């Protein structure tokens, strides 16, 4: 083996093992997720990395071990076409605004049909001829025209899928950015920066895949564009993995009450526990009044602690004799929103109340906004907008009835 061959091998092996490493990281992190939406996000991402890893394993087989490739050909076809769709699935889960927004699995139909067709067809073709098709590295071989055409059509079908799904990803991410901008500066910094980076990389990869399609298969391994794909794809995967691990994102779906479930906390339960709970057949009762709710409201709502603009969830842990995970889960379950949303909704309500008071008649909203605990007028506007945009009407009603 000389240096050139080693470099070629590296260009294929790098994305394969990068994806494998990210897959393992996601696999581990998935076990620590508390909310249902996060688990879903990480599961999809895990499958994305698995698909990328397997696809590059296929590429490795195609160029360096043809018999292996012949065996995995149909699975490879399926996984290669799936990559972009799973990626869109990930973006879909990340940006979805409504709980219970299911990703239509119909998206996977085309790759599945093509993969199965190839699989069934492959039984009618002798192994040697399939091997010849791979080793000759031609788009269409003279003996099995139809089969080789289908087998090699993946590059074109993939390009077609990439164009559509990258466009869809862009569309959803742009909408997501707009929704986040309305919420807060901190989140904007967190989730927008890396998603923009990823969008740029996707665009480069898309342009690059056009070049790949126009390159003959036997020259692809020596081409510069394969290196570009390997490199950008690896960097993209690392960015995604890092930011998901660090939870640099905002899931609009996390922490909202699901309509078909009694209790959001049932969603906080990891899989192992779910199994056990199913076997014990426990059912949480919905209308039992909770002592904690009283204690919480006595401590927090009556003295109006929320008018402190710098209040964080950590400030409540010690006085309420609880811990962060529990309190956060409690607020989610009881009020159907996360802590920040909850506090802002209380502030807005308080604002409504005091604007109606006669002694405040001459004061401007800007003055009053500060007295109810908003740090600035801008924070108020953002909270108001967020409430109008994202919060379902029922949650607002629920709040008003407190």
């Amino acid at each position, binding site marked *: *083996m000389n240096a050139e061959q080693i470099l070629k091998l590296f260009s294929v092996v790098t994305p394969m093992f990068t994806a494998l*490493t990210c897959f393992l990281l996601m696999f581990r992190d998935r076990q620590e997720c508390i909310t249902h939406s996060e688990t879903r996000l990480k599961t999809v991402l895990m499958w994305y990395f698995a698909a990328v890893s397997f696809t590059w394993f296929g590429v490795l087989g195609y160029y360096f071990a043809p018999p292996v490739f012949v065996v995995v050909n149909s699975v490879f076809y399926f996984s290669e076409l799936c990559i972009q769709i799973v990626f869109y699935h990930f973006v879909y889960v990340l940006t979805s605004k409504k709980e219970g927004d299911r990703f239509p699995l119909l998206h996977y139909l085309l790759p599945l049909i093509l993969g199965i067709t190839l699989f069934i067809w492959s039984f009618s073709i002798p192994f040697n001829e399939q091997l010849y098709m791979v080793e000759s590295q031609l788009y269409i071989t003279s003996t099995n025209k139809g089969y080789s055409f289908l087998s090699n059509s993946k590059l074109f079908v993939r390009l077609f899928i990439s164009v559509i799904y990258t466009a869809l990803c862009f569309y959803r991410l742009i909408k997501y950015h707009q929704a986040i901008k309305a919420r807060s500066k901190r989140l904007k910094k967190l989730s927008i920066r890396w998603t923009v980076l990823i969008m740029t990389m996707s665009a480069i990869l898309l342009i690059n895949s056009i070049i790949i399609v126009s390159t003959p298969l036997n020259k692809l391994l020596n081409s510069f564009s394969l290196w570009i794909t390997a490199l950008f794809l690896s960097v993209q995967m690392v960015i995604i993995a890092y930011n998901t691990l*660090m939870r640099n994102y905002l899931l609009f779906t996390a922490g909202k009450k699901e309509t078909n479930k009694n209790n959001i906390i049932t969603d906080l339960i990891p899989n192992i526990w779910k199994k056990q709970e199913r076997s014990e057949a426990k059912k*949480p009762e919905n209308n039992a009044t909770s002592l904690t709710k009283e204690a919480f409201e006595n401590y927090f709502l009556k003295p109006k602690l929320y008018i402190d603009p710098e209040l964080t969830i950590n400030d409540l842990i010690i006085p309420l004799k609880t811990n962060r995970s529990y309190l956060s889960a409690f607020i989610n379950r009881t009020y159907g929103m996360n802590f920040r949303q909850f506090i802002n909704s209380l502030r807005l309500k308080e604002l409504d109340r005091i604007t109606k008071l006669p002694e405040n008649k001459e004061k401007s909203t800007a003055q009053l906004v500060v007295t109810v605990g908003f740090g600035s007028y801008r924070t108020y506007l953002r909270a108001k907008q967020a409430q109008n945009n994202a919060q379902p009407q029922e949650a607002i009603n629920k709040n008003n009835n407190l």
Partner: protein
Amino acid sequence: MTLTDIIHFIGYSAPLISSIICGIILVLCFNRKNRPSDPRLLKLLILYFFIVPVNWMSVIFFDFMPVVSVYCNALYYFLLPLAAIVFYHFVYILTNTGKDKQFPIIQYVILLVCATGLSIWTFTIPFDVQLHITEYPGNIVPGYEAFSKFTIARLPIRCIYNIAYILFGIHRLFRYRKAVLDYSADISRSSLQWLNIFLVLLLAQIPLPLTVLLFVDNNILTIVLAILPIILLTPQHVILCYNMLTGNYVIMDLSETNGDNNLFNEQQKFGLNKKRFEQYIHEKKPYINPKLKITDLTLALHTNRTYLSVFINTTYNMNFSRYINRCRLEELARLRTNPAYKKHSELELMFKAGFSNYRGYQRIRKTEEIRPFKSK
């Protein structure tokens, strides 16, 4: 390029790439403002993750490009042993039981001296001889017997050296796991189970290069042995990286606790009795803090760490961690029977009782079932 070559290459590149990726992720994490981990540990692990790929690259060069391998020889005298020391340094800080001094820098100095000596020796050997030895390992070149023998002995020496460092690490880990039970009640963090898994797997992998040497003709076996590092090292790097990212460890920090001797003497007059201690535990419920450490109690009880630890051990005949976790189990049982929490799920109650996660809870429940506590 044969299939065996390719499989070997894949085997070597798996830990190489996974280690770079883990290193990059940790570097990204290091630049965050509120990083979850201790900066010293992060730095050492990042260093480790960037030395490991160089070492695997050396294996690739050795197998496939002997000329490059000869050029890099001197570099590897430094880097191969450095990985083991850096990792031991990492374990050293992580498993500090409070009594240890600074990490002995002398280890780095010895390495530097030895490696420099070997490099100088290597430079006196002609290039052709070195190349010959690299290409045909095992041959003894006349006139350079000592160097040939040294080249043959390199692999066993490295194995013994690595095994020694891993055993040191495992020894420290055992010592730490005993000591931490009197310090922290966060069982899932303080057990450092992941480090244990990592070290034991690493120990199991060391004999691999030796077996490859023994069965060099047997193709299938060499292939299998070359693939083993893929299966094991990639998840191992992920284990290290993930637990560092999430800060899944407890460093025993005892520096501030040994100071107040006056208070301690005064305390001995009043005495820390069982009644007062239990009253404090039941009223303040410190155990609902999942990260509770013994030093969190000392101020409120006007005592010091050593005294409190001895007190719990002698009064209840169990260590701090077990005592606190038993309190949590009792709290959980109380919460379950409390009608106010009827609609709460088990997991929610578990959080509320102070368990940091499900795994920790399960471990404690199991150990308590196996050896239930007999009250005196």
